[in-house]
């Protein structure tokens, strides 16, 4: 008995040793800064002078500053555009990938490559492609007689453009979906075929439920990423060339947070903004998990 307990302890110790690098990294680079920013959110820290406590003034200002609400609304609209669009496009591409057979290795790499390009470079490139007057996208639309919009300058099109640009990085989801699609048991499709189910029916009744776990995971991560959108928005609309002309319609939450921290010297307020976003993301994720549990199929998860 005693030796078994010893063995367990020893095993536990090695386990802790193995995960120690992550724990240390988490404490130093994630938990520590979070605690510090929580503290800073109650101060008037300007990055230059020492911080003084200001109580909940920063949180009060979140309510008073109309641009906080505006940037939050912009971010929600963007997320509402990007998350469904990103999911559908990634799934469609994954299903195509599944069909290409031998060349799939090549295409997998090709679809994943954009994830490796810096978001800033992609943002700059899309500014050229989406240019309303001379961009390639509108030229191609023109061949079909479609008069493309001014994607990058028309206030109404800024958020849709941002969503389109973000599609550039759905490579990660494509790979996840592809793995999930390949895991769907073949016999289920055969059974459905025997029952006379068409392709749509097979997709809805077999594929979707079987990959619902992967879908659920990517929808949550996409939502979180969308709420934290920064790189492309900043490059496309707030870069050195664009700064002076940015419309409020392109002001997403993280960009405004960044401006407060590093342009207006309001690190305390920016920290409060970060915590507000954290709480919002938390609430959205909890709702998603609650709703998701009703639809997601977990293998071997019959107890839920």
């Amino acid at each position: 008995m005693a030796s078994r307990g010893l063995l367990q302890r020893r095993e536990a110790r090695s386990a802790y040793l193995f995960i120690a690098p992550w724990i240390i990294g988490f404490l130093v680079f994630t938990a520590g800064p979070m605690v510090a920013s929580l503290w800073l959110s109650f101060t008037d820290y300007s990055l230059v002078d020492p911080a003084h406590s200001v109580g909940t003034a920063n949180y009060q200002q979140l309510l008073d500053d109309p641009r906080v609400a505006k940037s939050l609304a912009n971010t929600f609209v963007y997320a509402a555009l990007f998350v469904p669009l990103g999911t559908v496009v990634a799934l469609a591409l994954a299903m195509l990938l599944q069909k290409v057979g031998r060349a799939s290795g090549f295409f997998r790499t090709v679809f994943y490559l954009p994830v490796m390009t810096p978001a800033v470079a992609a943002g700059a490139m899309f500014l050229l492609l989406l240019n309303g007057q001379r961009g390639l996208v509108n030229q191609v639309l023109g061949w079909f007689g479609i008069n493309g919009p001014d994607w990058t300058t028309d206030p109404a099109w800024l958020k849709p453009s941002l969503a389109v640009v973000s599609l550039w990085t759905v490579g990660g989801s494509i790979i996840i979906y592809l793995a999930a699609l390949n895991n769907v048991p073949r016999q289920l499709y055969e059974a459905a075929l025997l029952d006379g189910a068409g392709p749509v029916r097979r997709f809805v009744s077999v594929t979707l439920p079987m990959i619902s776990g992967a879908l659920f995971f990517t929808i949550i991560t996409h939502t979180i990423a969308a709420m934290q959108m920064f790189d492309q928005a900043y490059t496309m609309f707030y870069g050195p060339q664009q700064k002076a002309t940015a419309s409020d319609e392109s002001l997403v939450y993280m960009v405004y947070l960044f401006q407060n921290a590093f342009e207006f010297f309001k690190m305390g307020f920016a920290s409060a903004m970060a915590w507000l976003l954290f709480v919002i993301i938390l609430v959205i994720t909890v709702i998603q998990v609650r709703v998701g549990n009703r639809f997601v199929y977990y293998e071997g998860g019959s107890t839920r």
Partner: protein
Amino acid sequence: MLVAAMAATALLGGCAGVGSKSGDSGGGATPGAAPTGALKIMGFGGEDEVGQARIAAFKAAYPSVTVTNNKGDFDAQQFLTALASGNPPDLVYMDRNLIGTYAKKGAIVPLEDCISNQQVDTSQYREAAMKSVTLGGKVYGIPEFYVVTTNLIDTTSLQQAGVQVSDIQTRDWNALKATSAKLFQKNGNKLQRIGYDPKLPEYFPLWATANGATIIKEDGAPNLNDPKAVEALAYAVGLIDDQGGWTSFKSFRDSFDIFGEKNPLSAGSVAAFPMENWYVNVLRDFIGKGLKLDSTQFTDHDGKPVSMVGGSAWAIPKGSKNATAACAWAKTMTTKETWLKAADAREAKVKKDNSFFTGLFTANKAADEEIRAKYVTNVPDPGFKRAIDNYYATLDSAVALNPSPAGAEIDAAWRSAVTRALGGQPAQQALDQAQKEAEAAFTKANGNG
């Protein structure tokens, strides 16, 4: 990810911010001490011959100073996090219109000690440049370049439309509107040529100034909704509305290749616009490729040349570990002798390229005059000659916006007002709102001080 990164920055900053009560009164430069040791510079590119020649001049004068310059433009985040972590550069190069805000926040220090200990002769710098680095009677920066504006014109486009060069004028705004309409061309909803580009939003201060408004008062208070400023904005927005409207106009402008062979003047995409002096040095390469440049002065309604002054300045951050060397650098980079060396280097390059000198515009008046007399003597292209002469003609009357402790916020307020006006909001309403925002920031900035 980014939230975590932000938080990490905040942590680093937070710890250091509390701990960094350095006793350095800053801008120090110990009296009599010879500059030595390491000098860390931030925000300075200096990769062209004008930069390189002056860096060489400093290194020759102070061989015991080891200079590290992480090239690249001034980046607020980089600078502020370095400052907050207690590891600021010893010297920073930033736009002069940022000086007021950074000085007010205490991120950069007054240069009294630097100026007196190293006997920096501030009278050699142009008044408008000195004014933009002075806040509350204290000097916070040593001014470098002097960026001014005049009208540049593509005469090929003018000839096609039957417009005279003299019609590109800003004295009579109604006439300019008509001229611009004559030059403007589009095909369906695709723009082909902008007639006259008022360069909004960035040139709003120029239009307001030309119309007689002072958008930042002497004491740094915003005056954005001055009736003259409102009138100027409404007019300049009107020029853009006449030429396809903002969204198309901006898209068209975004597609320009400013530095290439297909630059907007060579390509006939813009017939005329107010533009900064450095651009003639870019355009010079395209004379042989068909560019026919001309120029007129950007004037007020009385025909007097008007220009805003831009440019950067050297400033010493709070906590600089080698203020003495930093001060020596700022001084050396901006003396007449050093600028002349830079001009020599440019002349050598010009000779090598079989080209001509387009002028060097610095905040050092004596340097400019000597360089002009020595090198800007033989401009073979008459259009370029007129452009260069026009730039020189603005130097003495050009003005900078008054520095303000709320400079950054005032800047943000008018820029977003101009963008709103371009999006369709009436100029009055847009500037009223900007004035309200700017006033609040100004009151706060003063109250905290």
